[in-house]
């Protein structure tokens, strides 16, 4: 993958940053940064994946950082397409899964419960 490439490619979308404040944002994601993110995301990435992803993420982040060019303080954020606040329902008993159904996909179960590995370490 060509790491010099910015996104969107100028050939694909006409450059249109004349009047907009130019934001230069050179992302440099190190192998250790990715290792930390992988720890947060609970994925045991291999050494090869860590190296590969740090290069890819730098390129992708450089490309997506363009959103900052137009995200001025006076623009409100949109988190969702529908203007919903809290949606409530009546608190009533309705048919639902039986314990056996709910447990049917569990990797391990015991006494109608999900059986999970030890959660706390020895020192905790």
């Amino acid at each position, binding site marked *: 993958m060509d790491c010099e*490439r910015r996104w969107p490619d100028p050939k694909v*979308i006409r450059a249109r940053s004349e009047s907009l404040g130019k934001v230069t944002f050179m992302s440099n994601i190190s192998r250790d940064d990715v290792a930390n*993110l992988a720890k947060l995301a609970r994925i045991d990435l291999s050494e090869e994946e860590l190296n590969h992803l740090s290069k*890819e993420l730098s*390129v992708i982040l450089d490309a997506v950082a363009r959103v900052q060019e137009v995200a001025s303080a006076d623009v409100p954020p949109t988190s969702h397409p529908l203007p919903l606040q809290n949606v409530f329902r009546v608190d009533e008993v309705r048919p639902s899964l039986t314990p056996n159904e709910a447990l049917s*996909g569990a990797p391990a179960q015991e006494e109608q419960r999900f059986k999970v*590995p*030890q959660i706390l370490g020895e020192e905790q």
Partner: protein
Amino acid sequence: MIKNSAVEMAKALNSKEISSVELTQAHLDQISKVDTDVHAFLHVDSEGALAQARDVDARRKAGEKLAPLAGVPLALKDVLVQKGIPTTCGSKMLEGWRPPYDSTVVSRLKDNGIIILGKTNMDEFAMGSSTENSAYGPTHNPWDLTRIPGGSGGGSSAALAAFEAPLAIGTDTGGSIRQPAAVTGTVGVKPTYGGVSRYGLVAFSSSLDQAGPCARTVLDAAYLHEAIGGYDRMDSTSINAPIPPVVEAAKNGNVKGMKIGVIKELQGDGYQPGVLKLFNQSLDLLASLGAEIVEVSCKYFDYALAAYYLIAPSECSSNLARFDAMRYGIRVGEGSAEEVMNATRQQGFGREVKRRIILGTYALSSGYYDAYYGSAQKVRTLISRDFEAAFSKADVLVSPTAPTTAFKIGEKANDPIAMYLNDIATIPTNLAGIGGMSIPAGLADEDGLPAGFQIMAPAMKDDRMYQVGSALEAALLSQWGKPILDNAPSLGAR
């Protein structure tokens, strides 16, 4: 019979020319014949489909009044749960999982007597534009088996194009219904966000995900839309309003006096010349049918792709946290819960899913949240405003669905950014939550492969897409003299 439209099949079922069992068996036979080559299906439920067909036949024989599509078979994207039927989302993470409940889409299909043939292949957890990211191997485009069928819903679109099913369900987070439709010469509709329940749809990016109908004709898609759409108390983001009159609109295709807005930013450089030529020919045709073509500018669309690739990974990093090896899915390794989680997610997730989870984790981490996710949310506002302004000048907006025809399998597999560009014209509608439809525009000069024409309508005005789509479809069909899929090579001849 398998090459007919779903409406024609329904008519034959109604007049008892054919039974649902016969029709279902004919499609199962076609799957046996061609799916080794196409690989549209991850699971074929022959027994369940035939049992459902027998039930519909018995009810019809008993004189029961059935829904319009009762007895017609359908292919279901493997991201929607169906009770007791393997649901993998194209991921090793869920290999062997059989969901204990039906998604609302599946419940409604069953209520309508629509026969579910099986589950279709997809990019893992719907992340991709080529179906190459499936952990179970790629789907092949029936037009050329060396090419991609689009994605993430490439299994559904390929099943339609290979006549393995006349109807299919897809889901569209950034174009996963429409781009596959475009590159396979089929019809795909992303309804208004909230128009079809997400209950039982395995979440990728909850504020963008939307299930919708896939078919070979606009009218078939409309009937399927009505079957699955509408309010659902199990989805708090479901819109509590009547389904827009899509079937009526599809039956009365007409653009006379309508204003059709061409989005300046969704054409030009980067689009394949043959794709643009077909787009412009369709515009001429719409004008000849009495529509007024106006140009509109949506200047913030240039930022849509960047915003999408922050918002979708951010939401995915949160949504996919549920795959923790504790309640369902695979469990790998020994040791503490955290060690098991780490090992399971390493082994269960594929490359693209990991890439997006890590990207989303970064974009949501403190210190970067405002700069990335926060800014992307603001772009989302700007894009919605662009749409509002454009819809004040036009009844519907149009563009090519995808910038190119189907590319070769493997061609873009190592360049995520090139892959992401496939969705450049489809992503804005997901960000704004409005509807989008892709219909076949013809075959591109360069490669003889299908390209799509995209129609977008304001929120809950989905009927307008069907009205325009069906008018254009009829005009194109009379020009071509035969359905576009008649040009596809016949399969299974080996």
